[in-house]
């Protein structure tokens, strides 16, 4: 069975996936080619929102909402905040530094190759079980995430929390030199 199998559920999902994927790719290309750094940040919003849409297609509703809340609502807002406070005065035209294009390209291609290789190697042609399950079953995924996070992976979760707290404190110590 090919990945784009025409079954009852998959038709609408395939169309939606195609639309979102094209949108994300276009926005991603614009993100790295635009001359204006604020526009780049706004294209990043489109990319991240599109990826949230893909998560919803995969019935990972909780992940999609976290994506919106954390990446768009917090991280991109911080980007915009920083950019607007420091550089990117309107009317200055080019605000993007292009010196690092070649190394960035190498890293991007290497990253893509690594992820494609590992995903292909791990999943190959296996299909995810999500397809064909009822919405009632899928509705429980948030509870499953919580149970897994706070029962099975409690220690790694706490370690990550402490790590983030240390990073936070470190940032404050570095910023305040008094």
């Amino acid at each position: 069975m090919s990945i784009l199998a025409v079954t009852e559920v998959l038709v609408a999902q395939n169309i939606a996936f195609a639309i979102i994927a094209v949108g994300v790719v276009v926005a991603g290309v614009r993100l790295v080619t635009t001359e204006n750094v604020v526009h780049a940040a706004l294209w990043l919003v489109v990319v991240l929102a599109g990826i949230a849409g893909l998560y919803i297609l995969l019935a990972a509703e909780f992940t999609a909402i976290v994506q919106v809340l954390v990446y768009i609502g917090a991280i991109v807002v911080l980007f915009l905040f920083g950019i607007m406070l420091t550089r990117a005065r309107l009317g200055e035209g080019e605000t993007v530094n292009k010196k690092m294009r070649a190394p960035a390209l190498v890293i991007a291609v290497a990253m893509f190759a690594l992820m494609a290789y590992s995903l292909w190697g791990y999943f190959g042609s296996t299909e995810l079980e999500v397809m064909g399950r009822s919405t009632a079953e899928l509705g429980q995924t948030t509870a499953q995430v919580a149970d897994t996070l706070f029962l099975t992976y409690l220690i790694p979760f706490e370690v990550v929390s402490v790590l983030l707290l240390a990073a936070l404190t470190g940032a404050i110590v570095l910023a305040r030199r008094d």
Partner: protein
Amino acid sequence: MSELIFAIELAYWQQTLIKVLVAAVLIPTTALILGIVFLFKMMSWMQSRMGPQEAGPRGLLQLAADGLKFLQKEDIIPDRADRFVFKAAPVVVLASTFLTYVILPAGPDLIIENLPTGIFFAMAVSSLSVVGVLMAGWSSSNKYALMGGLRAGGQLIAYELPLILAVMGVVIQAGSLSMQDIVWAQADGSMFGFGGLGLPFVITQIVAFFIFMVAIQAELTQPPFDMPVAESEVVGGFHVEYTGFRFLFFFLGEFATAFAFAAIAATLFLGGWWVPGIDPNSALANIVGPIALFVKIMVVAFLIFWFRFTYPRFREDQLQRFAWKYLIPLALANITITGILVVVL
């Protein structure tokens, strides 16, 4: 569920169409109601003046007349503005408001989409408005607009945390993120063994209710947290360059968001559409529900606008200190105590 309202079965696209139409009618209407009742009538009474009198009976059509006026105005875009971002900004703000209405339940079956992660979804989409505000402030090519946008950004980030942390207390007590389940948890609850009145979470989560009300005041950028649009300092803040229907978007968005937040507060803390004495499983609940919800929303909105009209503006440092040093620790303490009590009791 909503597939079987009044025993009529509809196709998916028909349901979707009806839901979109309901939302499209609901949002401007609610904004108008809040604007007329509170901004024009109550504010003028509180300030011992008449308020609008000419348009319609007792001046009730003033906002409709204002809306018409805005639609007629010339659509002015500053010469050096970033045109696309400038045009998109009000749409982003309004879209974040529209998305909030998706999870508001008005009855056991009357909800646009009963997401299992309802309240979390509402918090996520309401945080999108910051992007729109920053876009508006930056693209206007006006230093007052930029300052207003940055002030708004800082304020919205600072007060989003207490907002979400306040909601956490309710979520822990209800044991669900779904708005419907939160209503049901309040309807099924009991106070000291007496179940007749249910258990509105405003009683057990009074601290969270207080934090939530303060935080939505700040999220709406209205007094006493109106520094981003303070006319004496930054003229009109992020929307200083907007005229005509683009300004109308911001204006509608502000009041529609006030209504949506009031509805969320009414659902989380006052039991939403549930009325004591009416069986929530009966068809009657679908008819009484919206009325009950509306009454509760008006009570919450009264509190919101009461603060708006009676308190002076905070300074930037006071505003940030209040959020980070008082509200967030208070909300964290509330979560801890709620968590312990839920496990113990």
